[in-house]
């Protein structure tokens, strides 16, 4: 059995009060509670304050480029589907720079768990607007107010075919830990959008802001109902933020549909292909 210490690397360098602290602890707790040790998981980190978790969490890890954690995660999963693969990314990372990858990972139902630190601002580059920043948001890159409307990550993932979509809050450790656990246990593409205050650069979407606007989905909520999920996703337009599993459906993951993996032997552990003659025959 592993414990939180086994997963703990360097001491984090996040700002005091940053939502990242909560997410970091929740991720480690979720992994411990699911019975994993650091040598049994792959975590791919994007670039940003979120990605800086690379040094604070122990695992077989990739600290990727900005926006590219998702394709790295897909590749690692396909090469060794026995290991759970988690992508730890930010909103600019995943909904901006790497937006195209997100769409295609959803539609492919790749069995990776994407944990988005959605703080609605660019932190590491010291306060520019993000794809999830509210319209009118004044930032260093939009001093006159942001013109675009924000991305709706939940609705985006839902309409592009993600089979698990959840939302949680960095200030609720228990809810977040449980949500991450459910995401990891889900077979297929999982998106967990974590509402995360940035205490330094986002003076609008604060802990207080969220505490007034978040609410937990109750047991009666039908997470298999696509239309209900769409409604819940769109509540962001009214600044209401449901927490919990917004949508979950059972669908074969991408790797489960690759005939080469039907024998359940991972790609890296297969025997070398030795019937080259069969291929050469095509060229006679």
């Amino acid at each position, binding site marked *: 059995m592993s414990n939180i210490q086994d997963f703990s*690397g*360097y001491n984090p360098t996040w700002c005091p009060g940053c939502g990242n602290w909560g997410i970091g602890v929740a991720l480690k707790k979720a992994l411990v509670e699911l019975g994993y040790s*650091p*040598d*049994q998981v*792959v975590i*791919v*980190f994007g*670039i940003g304050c979120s990605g*800086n978790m*690379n*040094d604070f969490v*122990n*695992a*077989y*890890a*990739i*600290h*990727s*480029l900005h*926006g*590219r954690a*998702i*394709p*790295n*995660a*897909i*590749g*690692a*999963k*396909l*090469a*060794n589907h*026995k*290991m759970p693969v988690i992508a730890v990314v930010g909103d600019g990372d995943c909904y901006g720079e790497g937006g*195209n*990858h997100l*769409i*295609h990972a959803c539609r492919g139902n790749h069995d990776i768990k994407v944990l988005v630190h959605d703080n609605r601002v660019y932190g590491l580059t010291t306060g520019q607007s993000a794809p999830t920043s509210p319209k009118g948001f004044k930032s260093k890159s939009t001093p006159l107010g942001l013109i675009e409307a924000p991305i709706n990550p939940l609705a985006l993932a839902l309409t592009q075919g993600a089979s698990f979509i959840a939302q949680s809050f960095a200030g609720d450790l228990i809810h977040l830990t449980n949500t991450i656990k459910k995401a990891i246990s889900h077979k297929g593409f999982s998106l967990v959008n974590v509402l995360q205050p940035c205490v330094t650069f986002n003076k609008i979407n604060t802990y207080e802001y969220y505490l007034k606007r978040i609410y937990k989905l109750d047991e009666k909520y039908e997470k298999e109902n696509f239309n209900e999920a769409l409604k819940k996703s769109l509540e962001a337009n009214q600044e209401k933020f449901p927490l919990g599993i917004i949508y979950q459906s059972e669908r074969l993951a991408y790797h489960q549909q*690759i*005939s*080469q*993996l039907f024998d359940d032997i991972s*790609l*890296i552990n*297969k025997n*070398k*292909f030795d*019937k*080259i003659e*069969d*291929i*050469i025959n095509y*060229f*006679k």
Partner: protein
Amino acid sequence: MIFSVKIGGEAGFGIMTTGLLFSKIASRLGYEVIDYVEYPSLVRGGHNAYEITVSDEKNNALKKEIDYLICLNKDTFLKQKHLLHKESIVVYDKEDFDFEENFIKVNLPFKKIIQELKGQAIMKNTIALGGILALLGADIKVLNELIKEQFLKKGEIIVSFNQSFAQKGYEQIKNNYFSLIKNYLIEKKDKQEKIVVSGNDAFSLGSVIADCRFYCAYPMTPSSSVLTNLASWQDKTNMIVRHAEDEISVINTALGASFAGARSAVGTSGGGFALMVESLSFAGIAEIPIVVFLASRPGPATGMPTWTEQGDLLFACFAGHGEFPKIVLAPGDQKEMIDLTLKAFNLADIYQTPVIILSDMYLSEGHRSIDKKLIDEIINKYKINRGKLLTEKPQENQEFKILNYKRYKITEDGISERLLPGIPGYFYQANSYEHLEDGHTTEDSKPRIDQVDKRNRKWITYLKQDFQMPNIYGDKDAQIIFVSWGSTKGIILEAQNYLEKKDIKTGFYHFNYVYPLDKEKIKKLFLEKKRYILVENNSWAQFGKLLSMETGVEIEEKILRYDGRPINLDDIILKFN
């Protein structure tokens, strides 16, 4: 014996398939073939032409003139007639068009035959194949076999239906042009079994032999047939082939798979490669092996998608921000493509860094026959070398235990041991940031310098252990030395043969290992004052620049071609009039 055949027609009417069938027939009969295809970036309309040179002996380039021109439409004649000579035979349908020029006319009534047999326009090809085989004295048996292989899945009726068109074309010539029939394609008695492969086929085949487990690509001419080859073989080979959403995803998926332990490759052309470049640099610092197949076409931007150019050499060598080692290899023909592909996968694993195989449309889409025996030799000789990859739990007495494993350990040769993710008791991160030996991020001066030096030492090790000097062809002591790289090999060898017959002796330095270059060794090749002639299929003399930069050698005289066509014999020999 050497002759050339060119078949042309409207795009979308099966010219490519027909040309390749002809190459395969000649190869199955025991002859050497080399072919090249011209086509516009269109699915329908426009002009397609497929040119094949057939010879008794090994031959390196297409014949300059066309001996047999098969016109499936008038356009073919108009566009190709400048390549004909007095004895050229033009096969065409008089009902379709006629011409005044003084070439030997062979009327093959495509329209009439199709009407008679109730076929479709696309069957002109089959009639033409029957006709040309008759003119060349071949037995139609081989064509019938190939038709059978091609259509067997559709049933016997379709097979014999198609065969009837070939038979008609064949008879038409036998009955009406008996005097023109040559004995060129009589099945050889002592024939060697051969395969006919394009450069892309050769890379595909090479990657399977090399045990590449993961291939990722986004279609882009002229690299696409690697993707379609490998995808169509995956149920046999077990390779996982992903057609990703864009080239950025392509290389990053492959890097993820490579990190997890699968030999991985990507394929693209210049534009797609441009999108991969940031991630190439990531592979450099995180030290993740990756093979990149880069098949060039004329740029910039969309350029001329279906034509050829060696215009991406400098881009390939210097692709990626920051400084990191990379290896660029440029095969000169299809056989070298197989050889170097096998090497590339080993080099990527040994040096844990990107290895680029540089091809171009001419090499990628042109076919050539290779003796099957040579392929068998390559396969038997090949040893997979995964470098310092630990696939099992290291011995406990070794210095690294949990937390002490140093993924980026400073070593003399610059290469550190790489652990297969999932080995119990260990973990590490492949870091795109500068890092300490254990993989954790650092911005301190000393570890930064240590890691930069370590990565740079991989090049020193490579130059010592794996770099190969250029192959030297012809007379190395000659006063005239051609210098070139990659796909221009064949035409320069032909030019050498031609010049030899005119008593002009030449040597030829042909570079496969184009980057990095070994300065001291290469300088010695250029010590004597001679007439060095650089030959390249681009306008900047890119290899000349690279040579100058890496070794200080400057070559003044240049033969450059950059109209999208491969260099031809005249481009070279006219320099000697």
